[in-house]
């Protein structure tokens, strides 16, 4: 089930420079949402900016009927969203898309996050904890101050391995390099879940392939509708010779790592 509704803001908080957490009252969405799914959020109120913005579901509080989003100010739409205050309504469409598949056993999994990629992965980590699955979380960010949710993730019983581009915390370098080094030592994961910028995901797919493990990646593409109608958000899947365009909004955003063809 997916819904179109106006949700009241219960809280909006800046939790780091240019990074916001937004809580919304949307019981139907909270009840239906699965990790990896997203909402199409109306950031403005006039004809410009025109389109909704896809934002992942970061967490749900089913008891209180709340949905949390975690977003980075990337441009005009997200900048407008920061201006909305408690009590104001935000039009939401969702939950949309195919989320992460939850593991069938309680075997250890790995979660690899780059930057704002933690947004959907945090929801996944919450659910994993509920199912008693532990994760090694490779958490990449530009700098120490942007290693969001570290404490919360540890609190859920997961292990966190931070990496920062500037070396201000944890591993100094790319989170995929940290992850590759770790895999070289031990690659016993039932599943690798990943989300982050394009380049990071591409490298992650290589590592997953190299070690022959299962993996799922959550992709990003510019969206018109978010519901599968406009065919704008496609990504290439399949293998040489049988390439297929699939819609990130409905057939994704989460795809098996091996199915994505990188341009």
């Amino acid at each position, binding site marked *: 089930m997916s819904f179109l509704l106006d949700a009241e803001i219960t809280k909006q908080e800046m939790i780091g420079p240019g990074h916001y957490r937004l809580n919304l009252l949307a019981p139907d969405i909270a009840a239906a949402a699965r990790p990896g799914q997203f909402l199409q959020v109306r950031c403005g109120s006039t*004809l410009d900016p025109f389109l909704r913005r896809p934002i992942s579901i970061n967490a749900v509080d089913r008891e209180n009927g709340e949905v949390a989003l975690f977003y980075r100010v990337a441009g005009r739409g997200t900048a407008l969203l920061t201006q909305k205050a408690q009590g104001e309504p935000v039009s939401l469409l969702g939950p949309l898309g195919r989320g992460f598949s939850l593991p069938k056993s309680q075997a250890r999994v790995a979660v690899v996050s780059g930057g704002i990629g933690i947004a959907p992965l945090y929801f996944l980590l919450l659910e994993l904890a509920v199912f008693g699955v532990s994760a090694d979380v490779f958490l990449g960010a530009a700098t120490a101050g942007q290693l969001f949710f570290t404490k919360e993730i540890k609190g859920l019983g997961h292990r966190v391995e931070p990496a920062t581009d500037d070396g201000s915390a944890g591993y100094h370098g790319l989170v995929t390099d940290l992850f590759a080094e770790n895999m070289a030592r031990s690659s016993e994961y039932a599943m690798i879940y990943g989300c982050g910028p394009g380049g990071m995901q591409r490298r992650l797919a290589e590592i997953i392939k190299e070690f022959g493990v299962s993996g799922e990646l959550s992709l990003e593409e510019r969206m*018109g509708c978010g519901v*599968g109608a406009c065919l*704008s958000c496609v990504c290439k899947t399949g293998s040489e010779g049988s390439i297929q365009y699939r819609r990130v909004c409905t057939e994704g955003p989460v795809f098996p790592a091996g199915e994505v063809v990188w341009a």
Partner: protein
Amino acid sequence: MSGVNASKDAGRSHLTVNIGSLRMKNPVTVASGTFGFGPEYAPYLDLNRLGAIVVKGITLLPRAGNTTPRLVETPAGVLNSIGLQNPGVERFITEALPFLADYDLPVIVNIAGDTAQDYARLAEKLSRTAGVAALEVNISCPNIKKGGLQFGSDPASAAEVTRLVKESTHLPVIIKLSPNVTSIVAVAEKVAAAGADALSLINTLLGMAIDIRARRPVLGNILGGLSGPAVKPVALRAVWQVRQAVPLPIIGMGGITSAADAIEFLLAGATAVAVGSANFVNPLATMEVLAGIESYLNENGFNNIREISGLAHNNI
């Protein structure tokens, strides 16, 4: 929400409009390519309440579409270069059409080809298919290399496609025109003379956007088609001009987001209206447009939707 519902609109004949021999229970439909094949928006609204559905453009063979990015937002608008990704007419008939058979909803199939013959063959094929109510002939797609806009920008070619399609079908033939021409009236006149039953105005305006960081066009296809509120004044002008010159019913579209927008198109001369890009922002846009048109009729003492079509021409 599927299954044959007793339509809420049954009996409200004051909203009925005719597009050639196609009868629509109300004047509100959707623009091709913005509403998929129906299931995409069925979770949000009762499709039976639409006057008709216009499906995504269909070609003879499946098409993969253009490389990405295929869409970029512009001021109050959207540029797209989908490139007619579609499963081809065979799979459209077997895979997409059955879903719509359960609805009390005329299905208008938007068709596109590389050659005039392609259009004829599509028309023939679809005429033999149950559940197809009319054809919308897309001679105005800016996003494909061959055909498309090529036909739409030359009055003679547009007429040729029209003639061939008319010869190949008994279904009402709606020709969808491009605004990217010096005179849309000249094209409309030729197409009318060639036997078109109705016109759809307008397809997208040719445009582009540049990524100043990457220093290259944003769209994979470089050029794209502009739609959304930004183009409304141009679309309205096209409807106005064509209405003055050609006596065919017009499905007006281009930037409609509200009932007020739709009423502008009706007053300018459209018989019906199609909501396009606005569906992306508000999946209930069609329903709001329909409700708003009804209120407008009531509040202004009109008994019938047909009374307002073209009315603004009387007041100049």
